[in-house]
């Protein structure tokens, strides 16, 4: 079924009896050409582009819970391509271009809203760094604009720009950046993949790999053995756990990141804004809640919930930046498990086992990458060669010394 304005009117007049489920609920078949492990944004996008762009068939996505139960349904929904390094920026800009056409492509309202992101700057050194980053973005075909204090105040008159310690001197604006409705992205990809014949199999946990010689044959799951010619893991925070079934140790630590939402407020925040003197980012959802977050808690965790010191830290940053927030009440907080890599950059590569591929290490920036991650991973799975925009995301870069360390923090995952 195609969704359209006409359809909405027709259903409204006939009691909404014609909608039906957005995707099937099939039982696993004994064998597939491609198995994607993980029904998050990246797994579903991979399956979709495999079917659509690379004309492959006999594809299944295996998800241990329900689709969207992982980070794709927990993130703060910021979509942007404001990176500095050559290994990263072309990939994220490719992603942003895919976001721009996503809803038409999927025939699904993902509420993609290009409301702009401003990274605030608070020192001369930060201004220099932002100019450099903005230029790198422009060189890679993205958009960037340096704003002075007055221009920032025009958009956000309530900002505490005169703070003695961290005055706001201006900001780096990417006008094409914005937010998208995270669950709708998962559902939109799921529906579009299903329409192209992909089997989305929920409540199906992968518990092991069947490997003969150096070749993958299939996966063991909580719903029995399923054969496959190629298997792509795409399990974000569970990467180390799943790849250990193939005897691999990864350059990844799992950490918890929390997010917060206030009660619904009238429109106050027209775009996305980030604090340059700490780590804090905020936007307002279409329902009115201010959605924000800060740093990871900083210790290895698979708990999907964080602790209070980071809650306090995030609130302090919020108030430092917008004193007016002090009157808003916090509605909810939650956590997700981040696959923090050793250089803060993802990995999309083959493994030492023929037919087994790995996609992970997204740290806390993987939502914006969803379309491109799916596209380039599908490219790798279908052609066994990396996509042009993803040649640097190699698993062996820690051996060859080609790390992509956007923040220059070194091999300390909790600092990226």
């Amino acid at each position, binding site marked *: 079924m195609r969704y359209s304005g006409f359809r909405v009117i027709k259903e409204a007049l006939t009691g909404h009896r014609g909608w039906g489920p957005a995707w099937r609920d099939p039982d696993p078949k004994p064998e597939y050409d491609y198995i994607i492990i993980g029904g998050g944004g990246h797994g579903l996008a991979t399956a979709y582009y495999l079917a659509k762009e690379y004309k492959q068939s006999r594809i299944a996505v295996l998800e241990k819970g329900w689709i969207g139960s992982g980070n794709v349904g927990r993130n703060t929904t910021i979509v942007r391509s404001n990176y500095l390094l050559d290994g990263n920026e072309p990939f994220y800009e490719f992603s942003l271009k895919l976001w721009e056409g996503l809803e038409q492509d999927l025939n699904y309202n993902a509420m993609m809203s290009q409301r702009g992101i401003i990274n605030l700057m608070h020192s001369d050194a930060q201004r220099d760094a932002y100019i450099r980053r903005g230029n790198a973005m422009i060189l890679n075909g993205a958009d960037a604009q340096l704003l002075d204090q007055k221009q920032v105040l025009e958009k956000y008159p309530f900002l505490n720009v005169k703070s003695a310690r961290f005055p706001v001197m201006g900001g780096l604006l990417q006008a094409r950046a914005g937010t998208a409705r995270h669950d709708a992205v998962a559902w939109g990809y799921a529906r579009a993949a299903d329409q192209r014949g992909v089997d989305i199999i929920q409540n199906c946990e992968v518990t092991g790999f069947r490997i003969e010689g150096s070749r993958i044959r299939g996966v063991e799951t909580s719903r029995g053995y399923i054969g496959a010619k190629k298997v792509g893991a795409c399990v974000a925070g*569970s990467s*180390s*756990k799943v790849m250990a079934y193939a005897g691999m*140790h*990864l*350059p*990844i*630590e*799992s950490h918890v990141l929390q997010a917060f939402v206030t009660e619904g407020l009238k429109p106050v925040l027209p775009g996305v804004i980030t604090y340059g003197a700490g780590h804090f980012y905020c936007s307002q959802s279409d329902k009115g809640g201010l959605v924000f977050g800060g740093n990871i808690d*900083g*210790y*290895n*965790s*698979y*708990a999907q919930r964080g*602790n209070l*010191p980071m809650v306090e830290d995030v609130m302090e940053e919020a108030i430092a930046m917008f004193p007016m927030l002090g009157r808003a009440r916090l509605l909810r907080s939650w956590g997700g498990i981040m696959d923090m890599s*050793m250089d803060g950059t993802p990995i999309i590569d083959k493994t030492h086992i023929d037919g087994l591929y790995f996609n992970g290490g997204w740290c806390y920036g993987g939502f914006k990458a969803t379309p491109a991650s799916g596209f380039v991973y599908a490219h790798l799975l279908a052609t066994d060669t990396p996509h042009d925009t993803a040649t640097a995301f190699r698993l062996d870069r*820690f*051996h060859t010394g080609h790390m992509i360390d956007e923040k220059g923090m070194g*091999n*300390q*995952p*909790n600092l990226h």
Partner: protein
Amino acid sequence: MIINHPLLGPRDSSEFVYLGDARLLNRPDWQADNALEQFIDYGHTRENPAGLHRELWYHEQGDRSWLVVTRNTVTHEITQVELARDVARTGGRSK
């Protein structure tokens, strides 16, 4: 999280800085034939278990000692806290 410091008693985890897997205490032998491989592995690969994890915490805002904390990464429950010095000595190191 409360870390029960062996010398100072229960302290809030926010007084500490987290480094990571306690395996980092054991630097590879730089004279080994495969020292390069060992150091790449030491610097970059992690077990990252879901469950019990032995990890290094530094009491920066306290007595500045390094601790080896055994903590469950699924529940955040801390079951053992040792001075890293004692752990290293038991492992045969002189300091």
